[in-house]
């Protein structure tokens, strides 16, 4: 079927396009540096040693960022992750206090998380008509509710045996173990999303679910897998959280879903699906972690920090929208 007109189509990648895509990530790096400079200015105790020391409790939310990025790229949303963290942490703590060895408790945390994710995934793939927002809103109430029941009237649990948990909250030099774990996961998740067939399919689903399905992409299988993986990551997050808190309570994990979504959105991942890269999300994740450490060091009211994060989340979506509207007006 030779081209009758002999027309040729170029297939050399457009370099300028690529640099334009890189723009958001490089901006994020700039912002990361800026935030660090700011923190150094406002807090005299802001140095590498202290940052690493205080990092774990913020860093663990990155475990949720990775799968959340996938979910947002799919065009879905999961606001039950915080509740999964709470339930997993509760179950692991209860298991440990009943004399279960640490490794088994760790497995329990991860399996509980995975099961919760599986529940979300099953409901959403079996009843594709349902909006993920409402479904995960309902499961959020349920998972928190089950944790509440398990915790009983006291509403909290403290570990009686912290031996195993101390091991994962240990440090190598001045760097906490969890930092390395996060980096490993970051690399794995980023590479899968950006370099593999699976990742390309995720983008295809997010860009046009129907066309992806017609093109032979196993849409529902991928969604199920990602929602389950999200639960699994929430389980891992819960495990590290327990190793910091030495226990769990009814407010454990509250707001984690917002933090994860904020990191992703701030990193340039669109909530309408199909757009953005995990690298940006990771940089923005670290930026937010540093900001929280800095603000925490100057004893800022925790609620005020939440206000700032809320504003950041909205601004991250609002600013590009407004600037787009302005450029449109200019060209029109």
């Amino acid at each position, binding site marked *: 079927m030779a081209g009758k007109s002999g027309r040729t189509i170029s297939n050399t990648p457009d370099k300028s396009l690529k640099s334009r895509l890189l723009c958001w990530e490089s901006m994020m790096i700039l912002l990361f540096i800026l935030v660090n400079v700011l923190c150094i200015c406002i807090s005299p105790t802001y140095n590498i040693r202290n940052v690493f020391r205080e990092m774990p409790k913020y860093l663990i939310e990155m475990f949720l960022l990775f799968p959340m990025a996938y979910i947002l790229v799919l065009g879905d949303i999961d606001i039950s992750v915080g509740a999964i963290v709470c339930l997993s942490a509760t179950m692991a703590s209860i298991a440990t206090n009943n004399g279960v060895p640490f490794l088994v408790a760790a497995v329990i945390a991860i399996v509980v998380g995975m099961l919760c994710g599986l529940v979300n995934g099953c409901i959403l793939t079996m009843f594709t008509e349902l909006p993920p927002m*409402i479904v995960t809103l*309902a*499961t959020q109430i*349920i998972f928190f*509710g089950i944790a509440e*029941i398990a915790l009983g009237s006291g509403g909290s649990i403290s570990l009686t045996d912290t031996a195993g948990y101390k091991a994962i909250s240990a440090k190598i030099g001045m760097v906490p173990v969890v930092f390395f774990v996060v980096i490993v996961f970051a690399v794995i998740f980023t590479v899968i999303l950006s370099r593999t067939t699976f990742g390309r399919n995720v983008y295809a689903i997010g860009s046009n679910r129907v066309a992806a399905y017609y093109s032979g992409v196993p849409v529902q299988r991928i969604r199920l897998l990602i929602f389950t993986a999200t639960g699994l990551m929430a389980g891992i997050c819960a495990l590290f959280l327990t190793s910091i808190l030495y226990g769990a309570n009814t407010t454990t994990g509250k707001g984690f879903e917002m933090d994860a979504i904020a990191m992703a959105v701030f990193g340039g991942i669109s909530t309408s699906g199909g757009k953005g890269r995990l690298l940006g999300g990771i940089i923005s994740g670290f930026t937010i972690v540093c900001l929280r450490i800095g603000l925490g060091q100057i004893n800022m009211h925790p*609620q005020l920090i*939440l206000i700032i994060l809320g504003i950041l989340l909205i601004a991250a*979506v609002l600013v590009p929208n407004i600037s787009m509207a302005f450029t449109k007006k200019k060209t029109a």
Partner: protein
Amino acid sequence: MKDKKSILGKITASREASLMIVLIILCFVIQMRNSSFLTPSSIGEMLKNNAVIMVMTLGMLNVLLLGGIDISIASTLALSGMSVGMLIKRGIVTNTFLCFMIAILIGAVCGAIVGLTISKGRVLPIIATMGFMYIFRGAAYMVSSDEWAGADALGSFKDFALNSVLGINNIIWIVIVCYAIFFIVMKWTKVGRMVYAVGSNREATMISGIRADRVEFFVYLIMGILSGLAGAMAVTVYASAQPNMMYAKEMDVIAACVIGGVSTTGGRGSVGGALIGALIIAIIAKALPLVGIDAIAQNTVKGLIILVVIVLNVVTQRTMDKNVLKGREM
């Protein structure tokens, strides 16, 4: 073709009727277990305790009709309630009516900000309201400066919820008035029908001369106003103002709507349905201990109910579609 339509019509029309039956059965079962349930004072008490949820349900009905969502309402409530509480505690404002106005104003401002962000900024409602949930809750803490206003600090304001007019508690009057207004507005006025139109097909509104973004802004504004009002109501009903008041109660409001047959994808729902949904939520909370379910499990049960209802909706829709197909003669 004609028969099919009328059956479909009957089912959609009888949605409220079937909910009503559920409500009556619920009442009946509880009455069997506890004969003091269906007495005027018991019902009045129940309505008063759920008035806050019932009022906000009206706003959420509008938000869901548009296909949106607002999970910041409990925070708006806390901000307005806390502000009023502190104003009274500091003795700045003592007039009850003025307190209500201030609460409504604060709610309106919050709602306007949310509405602008969503309608003009084109931020997804779930993302925007998730952000504002933290911002407004944080603001409530800031207003409280880590204090709270107890019954003794609230003076005459707390009496509002204790007094009644014509034998009906003031709080319940507010609920009745709100529902009456919304019942008329949603069915009989252009504005109300515009909300349905935008929720049903946003693209088509331009041709009908409806400004969808203005309707959207307006809906979130109304949601804010009702949340503000609910804030003042919560302070007087519970005779206290705390920055963490009504935490996570937006779930109850959404649950009431979903149970009341309001579609979460927009376009479908009614004031009557929302009312019955809110009543069912109220009665379930009361019934759980009676049927031996611990109060601690209440949230789980609520979550399960939402899940079951939305799944049931899908299943019935599917069987309905299938029956239509089977009926198609070939």
